[in-house]
């Protein structure tokens, strides 16, 4: 069985507990002065990679866990957090604040990174909680021509480079089997991410972090999509109470629903 070289793409996003607010220009949500943290689905990806190593669940072992993030300089903090959780090293691709990449650009970047890093397994969050696109993993699989198992709730390794991935689907669970190299995207019930311990936080400061630009991968950020306007959802109208079933029926009739 091949030794695993895992690539874990991660993203710095507005913290999940923060209520996003639309900016004044209505071009996006306000990010300045807002608490950011790692995309929660990416925490699952790192946790899973580290567990594969710790539990020796892959017969060939894990040679390398590399995290990669494209974003502003602050993304380096997120990469350090990932290394504190157990990743070996990090690549930061500098992208200016506000020049967010579209899923296809990210997938192209990751394809180049996979080739350069000789990765044979990419574990990434099924989506990031900022734009909720849920596209990058699938596009990356398409570009590389690799098998993909999305929304994993369980990952198991078999003989001869086979990987079984359980995913939750409507009406039950589905188990896919594929061969390395492959793409796995993570879903909520895969694991419970750990908290970084203090000694590991300190060690993470000394782990290697490579700084790159899009140009290093022969890419530019092309925008194929244009955001026209971002607005708050309309405020919900208050409901009304009716006394009894008769009241309900007459109300529905009055509204023309019956």
């Amino acid at each position, binding site marked *: 069985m091949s030794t695993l070289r895992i690539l874990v793409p991660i993203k710095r996003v507005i*913290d*999940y*507990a*923060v*209520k*996003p607010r639309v900016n004044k220009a209505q071009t996006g949500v306000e990010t300045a*002065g*807002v*608490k950011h943290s790692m995309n*929660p689905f990416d925490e699952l990806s790192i946790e899973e990679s580290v567990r594969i190593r710790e539990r020796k669940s892959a017969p060939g072992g894990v040679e390398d866990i590399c995290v990669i993030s494209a974003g502003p300089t602050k993304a380096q*903090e997120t990469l*350090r957090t990932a290394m*504190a959780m157990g990743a070996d090293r990090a690549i930061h691709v500098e992208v200016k604040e506000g020049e967010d990449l579209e899923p296809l650009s990210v997938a192209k970047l990751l394809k180049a990174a996979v080739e350069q890093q000789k990765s044979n397994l990419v574990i990434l969050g099924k*989506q990031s*909680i*900022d734009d*909720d696109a849920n596209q990058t993993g699938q596009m990356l699989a398409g570009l590389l021509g690799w098998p993909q198992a999305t929304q994993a709730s369980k990952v198991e390794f078999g003989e001869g480079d086979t990987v079984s991935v359980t995913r939750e689907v409507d009406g039950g669970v589905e188990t896919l089997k594929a061969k390395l190299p492959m793409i796995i995207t993570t879903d*909520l*019930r895969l694991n*419970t991410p750990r*908290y*970084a*311990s*203090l*000694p*590991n*936080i*300190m060690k993470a400061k000394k782990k290697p972090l490579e700084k790159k630009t899009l140009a290093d991968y022969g890419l530019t950020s092309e925008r194929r999509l244009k955001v026209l306007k971002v607005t708050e*959802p309309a405020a919900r109208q208050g409901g009304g109470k009716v006394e009894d079933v008769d009241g309900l029926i007459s109300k529905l009739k009055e509204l023309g629903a019956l």
Partner: protein
Amino acid sequence: MAGVLHRAALRTSRLLQCSKRPSRYHNGSLFFSTSSRRPLMALTGFTETQLTVRDAVSQVCSQFPNTYWQEHDENERDPTDFHATLAKDGWLGIALPEALGGSGLGISEATMMMQAIAESGAGMAGAQSIHANVYATQPLAKFGTAEQLESTIPNIISGRCRVCFGVTEPNSGLDTLRLATAASKQPDGSYRVTGQKIWITCAQVAAKMILLARTTPLEDVEKPSEGLSLFCIDLDRSKHSGLDMRRIKKMGGRAVDANEVFFDNYAIPADSLIGEEGQGFKIILHGMNAERCLLAGEALGLGYAALARATQYAQERTVFQRPIGMNQGIAHPLAEAYMRLEAAKLATYHAARLYDDGSVPAADVGVACNSAKYLAAEAAFAACERAVLTHGGMGYAVEYDVERYFRESLVPRIAPISREMILNYISEKVLGLPRSY
């Protein structure tokens, strides 16, 4: 927005998975909250490491919500699992050497950790449950022999044994140099301890005590600061060991025990002595300034926690068809509490920086650390009192936590040194005024 739904789902699923963990989201307001968790405290000026510590510790503490502390306060139950969780992730070794399994950070970072703990809702109780493990080990780490360090420090960091600090005595109080507990040397080099200590936090759950005792009687020394020695001793609770302790019922921080400890001819081996015999006071001074910083941090955490709760309540509570926070009678005292906390914060982290610097004269460090402790304690007390008053009748209810914070806010005003003694110290050492006592 789909994102919001996913986030809610994510939290719910984590809740399901974490049922073994202490009630992470029991507090209803946390469960579905999507409000901003931006802290009130300004974070500018802190180092990256301090901010990392703050974030990481806050995350760990989020497993122990206010309800956890309410219950432990009410039942006077030790937060054993809280201590164990912090130990498991290496936090107790924050300011201990890397060679011994610590992380080799300074008191600046340790202060930030203690603040984050108190601020999480754990308050003084949470802070005190680990406090001595962080600062009382400082003199040990600095003056202990290699064997002493290797046999104790790793066990303290891992949480296998907990430590308490035995200095204060009922009959000497703040007059530490007159402490009467005697350790008399035996022909075989070991010691026998006789005397009484008081207000020893966590003695019931600790396996070790850092003990200050007199090895040469007061009459036989030139200066009262001589003849004291520091020991790191085991607490043997077996029947005829000569050690007894009694829990003191108290106003706040009831989750952690505070005790009267009695030694009656209690035997301790020769190798429990830290540093040289008779040098105990000098050695312990090293830990005391660190303790002042940590306590200042804890007070700040408590104050900011109280202020955050008061602010939230002032925003949500509607009387006369408007939020009470719209009334300047409510808003201004909160604004003032904020400014006091911010000022005390600057004094606190300034003191911690001086302590860590190492090249600053000890007298200057002492002045900065004492001033910080004083200012932070007063600012915290003001914030906690104001938080109770802002809540009106609800401030008196246990459910709203601020009464617990308020009870605990008396601790940093009293311990480890009273406000009055700090004022004496500044009057004498800085202003050069004659000593009154």
